[in-house]
């Protein structure tokens, strides 16, 4: 060692060295740096793409779900300029604990805020924001802001004169909640909970509870769809894997057909087939299985959702199963049979366990897709076949309560991640074969 350091000064005192005296590790790193750089350049576009289209939106989604600052700042839609609003009122909230009866100072702050809103044309936004938490109050803001210039002291009287609903403690609690930039209220709403006048967390009235029910229904229907696709897909995949190539190719085309059909065509054909005056019912009536007045409602309800989604998602179970079954040699089952197992035992103990990675992959894939599907249930699900994703879409497109949509979506995401984790614990994620 001492000799080596002497002959190659400046080199690391320990570790192997190259023939010309450089440390081996450094030489290796240098020789590989070029290849590594090149590899990085190759994946860089994908990395950027994933960051832009996946990581950023999910980050945005998460931040949206805890924040809707429309009560705090006004964004001018044409210039993008941000103006803080309701400053005085928010200060009043800070100075006074929850449940404080709003005094003249509070109403004066409110009047100042409304006047500013009238100028900015921001009363609609603020009204919408507060309306999420205190329904039916949107018009208070639009109405009162229109008359903000005429408001004079004493402000309490003047404002209550415009509409006495301003005295509603629910409204004040809602404004107090909206004064902080970050809130868990959207998550509460997504779990059918809300805050009462004193800021305590309570369940919403029973006739308004919908999200938990839909989460549950989504989970149940997704499990049902997953099981159905497995039961239907397993024999098909087995046939695909064991038939001679020319037949299996034909069968494969049939399996993939749903992929290649446009959504509109598919939906129309479901309607033609499944509606109560449709082909399937006609056939059943013709065959005398059901009476003309006993036609089965197979569309615009849960059954429609299950049938249609099973149809769409079937390839997602068949393909992983097929890819797992294809390399399973017939000799395994033969070996089991020769060792004394009946064909059922051979299937159960030798064939089936070897398809578990495919079953797992297919089931996970179908379940996750089913949980997030919304177009199909919207089209054929009627009212009882709606899933949680339909409400997310509703809040994205119709009510524009994006924060609630984000909260619901985040909960869904969390649910899927939990499932993924469970799968990893139970089966092992490396035991997953997608094809």
């Amino acid at each position, binding site marked *: 060692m001492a000799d080596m350091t002497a002959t190659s000064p400046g080199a690391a005192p320990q570790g192997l060295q190259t023939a010309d005296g450089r440390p081996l590790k450094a030489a290796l790193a240098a020789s590989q740096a070029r290849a590594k750089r090149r590899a990085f350049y190759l994946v860089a576009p994908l990395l950027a793409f994933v960051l832009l289209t996946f990581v950023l939106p999910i980050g945005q989604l998460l931040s949206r779900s805890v924040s809707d600052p429309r009560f705090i700042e006004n964004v001018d839609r044409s210039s993008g300029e941000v103006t803080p609003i309701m400053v005085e009122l928010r200060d009043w909230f800070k100075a006074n604990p929850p449940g404080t009866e709003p005094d003249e100072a509070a109403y004066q702050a409110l009047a100042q805020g409304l006047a500013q809103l009238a100028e900015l044309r921001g009363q609609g936004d603020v009204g919408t924001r507060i309306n999420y938490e205190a329904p039916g109050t949107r018009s208070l803001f639009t109405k009162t802001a229109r008359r903000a210039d005429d408001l004079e002291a004493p402000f309490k009287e003047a404002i209550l004169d415009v509409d006495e609903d301003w005295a509603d403690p629910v409204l004040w609690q809602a404004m107090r909640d909206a004064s902080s930039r970050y809130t868990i209220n959207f998550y509460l709403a997504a779990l059918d909970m809300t805050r009462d006048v004193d800021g305590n967390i309570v369940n919403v009235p029973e006739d308004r509870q919908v999200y938990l029910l839909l989460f549950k229904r989504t989970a149940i229907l997704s499990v049902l769809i997953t099981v159905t696709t497995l039961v239907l897909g397993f024999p098909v995949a087995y046939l695909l894997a064991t038939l001679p190539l020319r037949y299996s190719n034909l069968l494969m085309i049939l399996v993939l057909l749903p992929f290649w059909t446009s959504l509109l065509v598919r939906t129309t054909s479901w309607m033609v087939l499944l509606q109560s005056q449709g082909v399937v019912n006609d056939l059943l009536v013709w065959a005398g299985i059901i009476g003309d007045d006993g036609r089965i409602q197979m569309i615009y309800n849960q059954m429609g959702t299950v049938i249609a989604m099973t149809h769409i998602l079937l390839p997602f179970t068949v393909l992983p199963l097929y890819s797992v079954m294809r390399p399973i*040699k017939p*000799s*395994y089952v*033969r*070996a*089991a*049979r*020769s*060792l*004394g*197992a*009946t*064909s059922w*035992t*051979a299937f159960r*103990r*030798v064939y089936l*366990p*070897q398809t*578990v990675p495919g079953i797992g992959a297919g089931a996970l894939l179908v379940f996750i897709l089913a949980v997030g599907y919304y177009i199909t249930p919207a089209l054929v699900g009627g009212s009882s076949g709606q899933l949680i994703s339909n409400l997310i879409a509703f809040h994205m497109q119709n009510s524009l309560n994006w924060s609630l949509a984000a909260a619901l979506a985040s909960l869904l995401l969390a649910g899927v991640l939990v499932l993924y984790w469970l799968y990893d614990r139970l089966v092992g994620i490396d035991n997953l074969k997608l094809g």
Partner: protein
Amino acid sequence: MDVTTPMVEFDRVQKSYDGESLVVKDLNLAMPKGEFLTMLGPSGSGKTTCLMMLAGFETATNGEIRLAGKEINHIPPHKRGIGMVFQNYALFPHMTVAENLSFPLEVRGMDRGTRETKIKRALDMVQMGKFASRRPAQLSGGQQQRIALARALVFEPDLVLMDEPLGALDKQLREHMQFEIKHLHESLGITVVYVTHDQSEALTMSDRVAVFNDGKIQQLAPPEDLYERPDNSFVAQFIGENNKLSGKIEALDGETATVRLHSGELIGATAVNIGGAGSETLVSIRPERVEFRHDRIQEGWHTLDAEVLEFIYMGDLFRTRLRVAGHDDFVMKCRNIQGQERLSPGQRVKIGWHPADARALDPV
């Protein structure tokens, strides 16, 4: 079981897959208990089909297959009690070695204690006792082979079928395993039907070899007979290396035939499988029975003129390709003994052999 009752019997068995052609044509075969019989033949000769019919994975189209005197045509595979070793071992990848061995015992409803004893004994038998908790994927090819063997034997079947079990191993390991299987066969007293397309494997291991071609058994005989006394040109050609000289029967005198080669020379040969005088024949001579040194060619031997075309040094052997009687592919093998002469291309020599080594067979 009556001692004289054959363990396995094929009685006029035929098999067709498509209803148009026969893969197995009129197979008749009887195996006594304890025999090691090899089915040898090129691929497509029907040997594997025969094995599969015996195992129960294929059904005979016609004829009877009997196991210990009992017809088994309609008995499902799992009730036949036959052990089987597959070409690629077919060890269950999701089970450990012990679980693989336990499987046939479990389906037979044996209790845990019995199973463990039997598994241990079977693993020890193939010297794999330490590997009980491994998965097949963690084992080498040779180790997997041993486990497959142990699994086929663990439930103590009387008959074990082996379908090219050593095909995936390298040469050295294969030879080693050949001896081990042979050894197990002898020590356990089981009956073995072994399928291979490797003739040296067949010769090394078997009591008798059935050479298959074209759906028929061409010859069923002990290895020595097969090599030394092939019944027809196919067997002569398939087993070991072989020189063929084509000609016509000039005269036939009991066991001895005189053959006029197409190049004009006249040679004597042992008549085995030929028609009468005037019919075509192939005379077969093993390369190692050919001599070129004057001092070794003895009285009464046939001699022919030859031209050396190629000389190959093979270590233990010298392989010389010659042009003889118009044939360019006549091979002569000489042992690399002290003082052995090395021929060079272009050299002309006189070669000869003992008349008993030349066998006049059917023309192909």
